[in-house]
């Protein structure tokens, strides 16, 4: 019983349960599959937002290029699905049957070498994790070993996003160009376009999201999480406490990029295509906004942020398409100015204290053992005496 209570506190299971209830029971029961599929799409952005909580909120590394990793994951999945959809029978009318249609239109006569391994689903799953991780590793080693940080790093991630978009659009024969990779049909013969498949993929997406949430929680609760906070404030002090700061930054950025890539792969599966519009600068910045609105120090907040902003985007842009971008910009500025910790911050500062005591979240986990070993901890275990700790755990 004690162990369970400990787990509850450590992973904020009560809040996790509420989200699980919402995503697994309430939404599927109250929405038709078209709307639920949209929710599934929003959730793929939540993967990116969770990654941003880790690397931006905790690590202080602002990335304006998370679309790159979302895209890499999505493209890996799309390449596999496209190859399956381009069987010689399906493409018999092409000049070269058996290769994706856009290659045929671009006068390619054989499959490029880097497409070959994507015939294998196992390789594809590995590639979804390893390609973005490797790419993130190369970029961050180059940057963080040279101690490029802050706004310079953010600008470089933007440049990377722009470069990758231009590359994808320019190499039409290899990538499908500006249209992306479309007309995806089956996964190992299982038609992913049916309503039933969409339901299943939605639940797979939710399950993976919770896997990422738990990994994220584990990292935040570990010493590495506290080191990230420390690095965000006093990078030099961390260095002179004997830590190789760049190694930690590289790790957290790679982890965030892998989360984004999983989101991208789930996007491809649920929506049925992948295109450069999800790679570039604009989608990357939108992803930062989801994270900021939800609360950049809260993993769960990031999920709600992605859901709410996207839902607002969909309904708002249906009625006022030309105003939407302005509204989005205003939302971002408003949140940063008024609620720097986003929705999660609003929750922990304004709503939660007014709730009955038993509904409040438990004591922040990292202080529990310390309280247990000191005798004079009564003063500091009350929330009001410890505002920053509260803030730091602004998770809900």
């Amino acid at each position, binding site marked *: 019983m004690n162990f369970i209570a400990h787990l509850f506190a450590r992973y904020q299971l009560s809040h996790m349960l509420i989200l699980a209830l919402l995503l697994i029971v309430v939404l599927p029961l109250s929405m038709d599959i078209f709307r639920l599929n949209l929710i599934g799409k929003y959730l793929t952005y939540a993967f990116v937002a969770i990654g941003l909580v880790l690397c931006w909120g905790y690590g202080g590394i602002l990335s304006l290029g998370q679309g790159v990793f979302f895209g890499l994951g999505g493209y890996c999945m799309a390449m596999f699905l496209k190859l399956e959809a381009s069987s010689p029978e399906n493409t018999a009318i092409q000049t070269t049957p058996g290769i994706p249609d856009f290659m045929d239109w671009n006068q390619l006569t054989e499959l490029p070498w880097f497409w070959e391994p994507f015939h294998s689903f196992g390789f594809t799953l590995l590639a979804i994790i390893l390609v973005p991780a490797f790419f993130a590793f190369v970029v961050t080693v180059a940057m963080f070993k040279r101690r490029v940080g802050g706004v310079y790093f953010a600008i470089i991630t933007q440049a990377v996003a722009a470069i990758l978009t231009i590359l994808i659009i320019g190499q039409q024969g290899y990538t499908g160009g500006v249209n992306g990779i479309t007309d995806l049909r089956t996964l190992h013969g299982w038609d992913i376009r049916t309503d039933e498949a969409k339901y299943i993929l939605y639940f797979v997406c939710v399950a993976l999201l919770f896997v990422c949430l738990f990994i994220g929680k584990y990292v935040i609760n570990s*010493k590495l999480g*506290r080191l990230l906070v420390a690095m965000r404030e006093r990078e030099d002090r961390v*260095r002179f*406490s*004997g*830590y190789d700061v760049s190694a930690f930054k590289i790790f957290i950025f790679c982890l965030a990029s892998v989360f984004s890539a999983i989101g991208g792969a789930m996007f491809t599966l649920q929506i049925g295509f992948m295109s450069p519009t999800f790679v570039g600068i604009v989608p990357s910045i939108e992803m930062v906004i989801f994270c900021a609105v939800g609360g950049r120090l809260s993993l769960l907040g990031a999920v709600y942020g992605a859901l709410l902003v996207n839902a607002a985007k969909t309904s708002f842009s249906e009625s006022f398409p030309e105003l939407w971008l302005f509204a989005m910009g205003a939302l971002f500025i408003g949140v940063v100015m008024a609620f720097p910790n986003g929705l999660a911050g609003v929750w922990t500062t304004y709503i939660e204290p007014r709730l009955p005591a038993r509904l409040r979240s438990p004591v922040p986990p990292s202080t529990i053992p*310390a309280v247990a070993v000191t005798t004079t901890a009564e003063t500091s*275990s009350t929330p009001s005496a410890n505002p920053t700790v509260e803030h*730091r755990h602004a998770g809900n």
Partner: protein
Amino acid sequence: MLETNKHIEQKDFVLSVEGLTVSFDGFKAVSDLSLYVEEQEIRVIIGPNGAGKTTVLDLICGRTKATEGSIKFKGKELTRMNEHQIVHAGIGRKFQTPSIYEDLTVFENLELSYPRGRNVWGALTFRRDQQVIDKVIEIAEMIFLADKLDMSADLLSHGQKQWLEIGMLLIQDPELLMLDEPVAGMSVSERQQTAALLQKITKDRSVLVIEHDMQFVADIADRVTVLHQGKVLSEGSMERVQNDPKVIEVYLGH
């Protein structure tokens, strides 16, 4: 014969700095500086503003890269090592303004400085076991913060922050401790407590201190090195240095 002598000499020194030079765009902040610190010695570096005192500490701990010269710590050449490798070798550095993690509690500040789990995997799997807790409490008692372990560090007073940073160094158990103005901005009583603290913690290690407060220097120093324009102007006991005419001219006389 000369070579063997030199060899024996080096063995006695924990830290030997030789011919150290660093130039920033041609300006030599430290110029051909040599400095030897013995085991368990408390060495204080004094000198007017801009004499290069902090730069010397920066060079030793790897924050600034030397243009020329060598820094040997227990026979290891430091000039080619990274900051964290230098820390692993056994050197701890305190900054001039208190450099602590204000978003974390006092306990967490000390815990992060505990020398275990210093790589990514180690940090992910780090467990707060009894050994860590005991050590943190022991250090916290030493730095007068035992009743503030769960307090967020930004609520500490200036002097307490300085102590916390000293504690963060102590928990690393370095063989050479470098302190940059440890009592700057402290009240009189805090200053006395700090002096007592330094006396206590310097028993098993060598200490390099930069300080302006002459009374404090006289209280703690074994030997004093006076820097002026990046060079050693004078070196020896406090008494000798105070009576050195060169020192009086550039520094103490003003």
